């Protein structure tokens, strides 16, 4: 039995294998529609979610399985003070695989070490979100044809943006990646991302404040939301939330084949006027999330 709580638990070969499977699912969906017959996935969402939960549930349903679960902590025994470990041991009596989202960092690790069935981290606070990373990688593969020799701009909340940490960790294992990390000083990438991934890997990166200056060299622009729910102090959130807003005029110097990504939801950091630009990939990215989760569910269930 194996779980996935951190993208680093997958080898490059395994990630490539998942992407290949996802591409095959896209090409031959019928081939996969009975793979999870009579299997159940429990989606335990202690935090609100639209895309991730529905993506997991639709992935399981499209594989012929079923989905059970809850979509807020208030709707579970967590409201009565039940621990994550006890909830997981209970849910494992009903489900073949579990996807968990929790506001506390490390909750998915606690779930995985207490579960007799595979656990997938669907986001643990500002920490990790490996299936978003797999979604991002599938999107880059489909949009850019591969992962090598890309200049990747990541913009916004790089401190609490869990998708950012996982993406940097995963992409860094491919060659020729350069990062331009665009954020206000208060929201720059945590030290551990630099200390454990970028610096020891000799991966070129620069930390800048100005999005427009960085724009011309980017192959990928990964926008993120400043996450209100991660701030203890609302004044800090209000001060930082509008630091970067991508509008059509800021794309004037961008490459014609730039790939604009966003894990969504967005608030106002990408103007809706960008949605009709062919370089806007974020809704295609959402769709890729379902396919890669189908591939992951099959891998963890061994079907």
């Amino acid at each position, binding site marked *: 039995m194996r779980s996935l709580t951190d993208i680093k638990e997958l080898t490059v070969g395994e990630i490539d294998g998942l992407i290949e499977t996802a591409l095959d699912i896209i090409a031959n969906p019928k081939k996969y529609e009975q793979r999870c017959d009579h299997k159940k996935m429990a989606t335990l969402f202690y935090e609100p979610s639209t895309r991730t939960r529905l993506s997991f549930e639709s992935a399981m349903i499209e594989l012929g399985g079923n989905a059970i679960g809850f979509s807020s902590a208030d709707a579970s025994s967590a409201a009565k003070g039940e621990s994550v470990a006890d909830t997981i041991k209970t849910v494992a009596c009903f489900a073949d695989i579990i996807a968990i989202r929790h506001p*506390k960092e*490390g909750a998915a690790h606690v779930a995985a070490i207490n579960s007799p069935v595979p656990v997938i981290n669907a986001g643990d606070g500002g*920490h990790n979100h490996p299936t978003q990373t797999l979604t991002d990688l599938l999107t880059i593969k489909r949009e850019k044809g591969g992962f090598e020799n890309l200049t990747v701009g990541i913009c916004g909340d790089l401190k609490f943006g869990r998708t950012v940490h996982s993406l940097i960790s995963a992409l860094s294992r491919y060659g020729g990646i350069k990062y331009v990390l665009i954020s206000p000083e208060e929201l720059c990438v945590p030290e551990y991302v630099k200390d454990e991934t970028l610096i020891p890997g000799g991966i070129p990166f620069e930390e800048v404040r100005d999005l427009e200056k960085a724009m011309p060299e980017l192959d990928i622009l990964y926008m993120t939301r400043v996450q209100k729910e*991660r701030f203890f102090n609302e004044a800090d959130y209000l001060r930082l939330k509008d630091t970067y807003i991508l509008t059509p005029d800021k794309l004037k110097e961008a490459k014609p084949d730039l790939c604009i990504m966003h894990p969504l939801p967005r608030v106002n950091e990408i103007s809706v006027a960008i949605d009709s630009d062919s370089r806007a990939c974020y809704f295609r990215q959402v769709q890729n999330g379902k396919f890669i989760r189908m591939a992951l569910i099959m891998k963890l269930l061994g079907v």
Partner: protein
Amino acid sequence: MVIGQITDGIVLDHITAGRGMEIYRTLGLGSLGCTVAMINNAESTKMGRKDIIKIGKIIDLDFTVLGYIDPGITVNVIRDGKLVKRDHLTLPERLINVLKCKNPRCITSSEQELDQVFRLADTQTRTYRCVYCDSKAK
């Protein structure tokens, strides 16, 4: 200064000079009820100066804690006046319930029955990180 040899006991040698008292307190050596000798700033050809602790009784030592505080320590076990075992400590790979995660967003902040587990992330800088949230130990 002459401090007599011990017949049965433990000698903690090569303690970084000045760390002896911290180890004495952490291991609770003051409450053992046997002879304990603390030697500060002893001359050492290898280290220049070092601290040494001699404990007049064979006790179970928490090598994990000891290795974390001062990984260069040598632990000598003496039985019937003879050296029967010598361990050179290293930084432990994992620390369980030695440090506490200070990250208020960590799951250990709300589920306090969980063990506090830290992993050695960087030997050179002696950096430990929480296995749950990856925060650096402070």
